[in-house]
């Protein structure tokens, strides 16, 4: 079972590992990043489309700040699909509803049910633009001509 690649931007190591375990078991490839800065660096290098799970409260650059950066770089906004995974869903800063709507960001509340997380990732995969192959970043992956369809292929 080969599915798309998921970037997990999460500062809590145990949560990051738990998500990795859940997604890898379902056949996703997982790219871990401990904060928004690291996450953004991976996004900028990735030639293929990624599902991006973003935590809100993180050191250096939090999830909302990272999404704001994404919104400033439309190629990044169009290429990837973003899901906010947060324990502070009731504490989001004012004004970020517009940002989330413009990027089509869905929210998964922590603590999450594993099925809910997997459902959100699957829907995000479906929303990935056709033409961007799901998979590792890099020219070879892009050149392989993978498409969003690869996400759905079981």
């Amino acid at each position, binding site marked *: 079972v080969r599915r798309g690649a998921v970037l997990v931007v999460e*500062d809590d190591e145990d949560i990051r590992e*738990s*998500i990795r*375990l*859940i997604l890898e078991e379902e056949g996703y490839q997982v790219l871990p990043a401990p904060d928004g800065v690291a996450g953004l660096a991976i996004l900028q290098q990735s030639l293929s489309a990624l599902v991006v799970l973003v935590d809100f409260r993180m050191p250096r650059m939090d999830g909302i700040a990272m999404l704001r950066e994404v919104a400033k770089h439309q190629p990044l906004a169009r290429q990837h699909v973003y899901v906010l995974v947060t*324990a*502070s869903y009731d504490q989001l800063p004012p004004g970020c509803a517009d940002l989330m709507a413009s990027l089509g960001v869905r929210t998964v509340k*922590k603590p999450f*049910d*594993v099925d809910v997380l997997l459902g959100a990732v699957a829907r995000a995969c479906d929303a990935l633009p056709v033409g961007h192959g799901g998979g590792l970043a890099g020219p070879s992956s892009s050149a392989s001509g993978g498409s969003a369809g690869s996400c759905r292929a079981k």
Partner: protein
Amino acid sequence: VKETTPVTRQSHNRPDPVATDAAAQEVRARDERIQSLEAALRAAEARATRAELVLDSMTDGVMIFDHAGRVVRMNATAQALFASRTDEWNAAQSFDERKLHEPVYDEHDHQLTREQLPFARILRGEELTGAKAVDIIYQGPSGQRMQVSISGAPIRDEQGKIVAALCELRDVTERRRLERRTEEALGALLAMAEVLVRIPEEPAAHSAASPSSPASLTDHPHMDAPARRLAELTRRVLGCERLGIVTVDLASGRQAPVAVVGIPEDQLPQWWHGTEQAPFADIPGFPFIARLQAGEIVVFDIAKPPFSEPPFSEMPNPYGVRSALIAPLRVSERLIGTLSYDYGPSAHEFSQQEIELAGAVATLAALVLERERLLQERATAQADALALREANRRMDEFVGIVSHELRTPLTTVVANIQIAQRWLPRIEAQRVGGQPQPSPAGEGGADDVATQLARLLERSDRQAARLTRIVSDLLDMSRIQAGRLELRPERCNLIAIALEAVEEQRAAHPQRTINLTAPTGSAEVSVLADADRIGQVVTNYLTNALKYAPPALPIEVRVEQKGKHARVSVQDQGPGLSRGEQQRIWERFHRVERISVESGSGVGLGLGLYISRTIIERLGGQVGVQSARGAGATFYFTLPVAE
């Protein structure tokens, strides 16, 4: 005198009887002329004397100056006005020579030059009559301040040339004093009225600056500014020596001082305390409270019964008061206080007019007090509302952080339980088949289910422990707030406590370097403390260091003993703290926004250092931090060494 006819030509040799008769007639006529002249002179002298008498008997002073400014006439009243200066009265002396005018001031206390003096102005042609009369002020015969009103006009000859100045002088010293007094009273009344209608600019600031209000003055031994101003204005209106304002509570029979003026500063605390202690109660034989309630003004005369008799006559009278007046302060016919005043030891008769004035002033003072009370109430209500909003905001923020901090470890716990549940079928298959199953995670390959399961449980356990710590911190905070944090001090070894905490963190963070240094040659540093709580403090310092310092750099823990004090410090090479941050970090909920964590969760409750400080201070020690921006931080605490 009529010209007589010459008769001497008719006879030369002998006496002519006709001629002799004519000569006699002439002599008679001359005599008559002389007599008539003498009569006229006497009459003139009598008139002059009468005029002099009239001048001297005039109650106003009159002075006449010649064209050169010399005094040519000065009646008795005028001389009395300048008595000491005119002792050596000499008409030949000029006004200047007599120094009558030095120094002379106008009513604004500006000294007048000679040219500005009234007589000089009149000699220049000015008419100082009616409203143009001027006041001069100078030191009177016995050194007292004199104020004299001068009017006058120039005297001219047939050609209209000014030959003299006529001045009329009237002593207005007393009248002007009364006028000033009235003016001051009016000014003070107006100021009181102004206080009543003025809208305070910042009622909240006012309340912060002067917490004492008429309603709550009992706790504040110093008058607040509005009350003092009220008392001073009232004293100005009434012109009394000492004036006190108190609020009264009829239900409890208590009174509270508001303000007093006219007593020396060093006697103020005594007055204040005495007033607070004294009940507001009727005096036996002199019930006055009901009278005050009815709006009546009460006069105490020490010379009359019951005050002139024991026990009152034997009571101390520190200010030697002869008589005092007490006016009720009433708002809507409710007695809220009293205004009392006296003139000290000097005899004073309270006239009906004064009693009425006191009543009017008391009414105004009551309104001012009531207004102050209402303003105070409003300010308090505003401050309460503000504090409530701030408390709510902080509570919201705190609840948000707490929920985040609780949900984060819970996420791992819940996720790992669910992962294990998903693996159950495979574990069951392994049990039935007896063969180790490949790792459910697929990629890892080598790990079997049991190893993976052990990792899930380890993560869950770690996060469950984190949950427990958060809940403990919350409980500790709540206990500290309620004053119920229990500590069980007993003799314990600080080195052992530090070592245990260090080992715990070494085990949890095997990749980090934590060094522990203790006094050489000593295995024990004894303190009287709660070992678990001290361990909690060391762990708190350590976890902060691990969280904020770069992972590659070591953390130094030191246990030292200096004289009667033991000291434990945790030094990191993290980003350090500014001076301001060093003070605030010990506050509840405080987190340094600037610093990002190097490892672990990005958020904390901001309670660790607050709890640590409370524990150490309760055990008789002190906490502190030595740091500078960019130069790492050393958190320490000291405790007294056990004897």
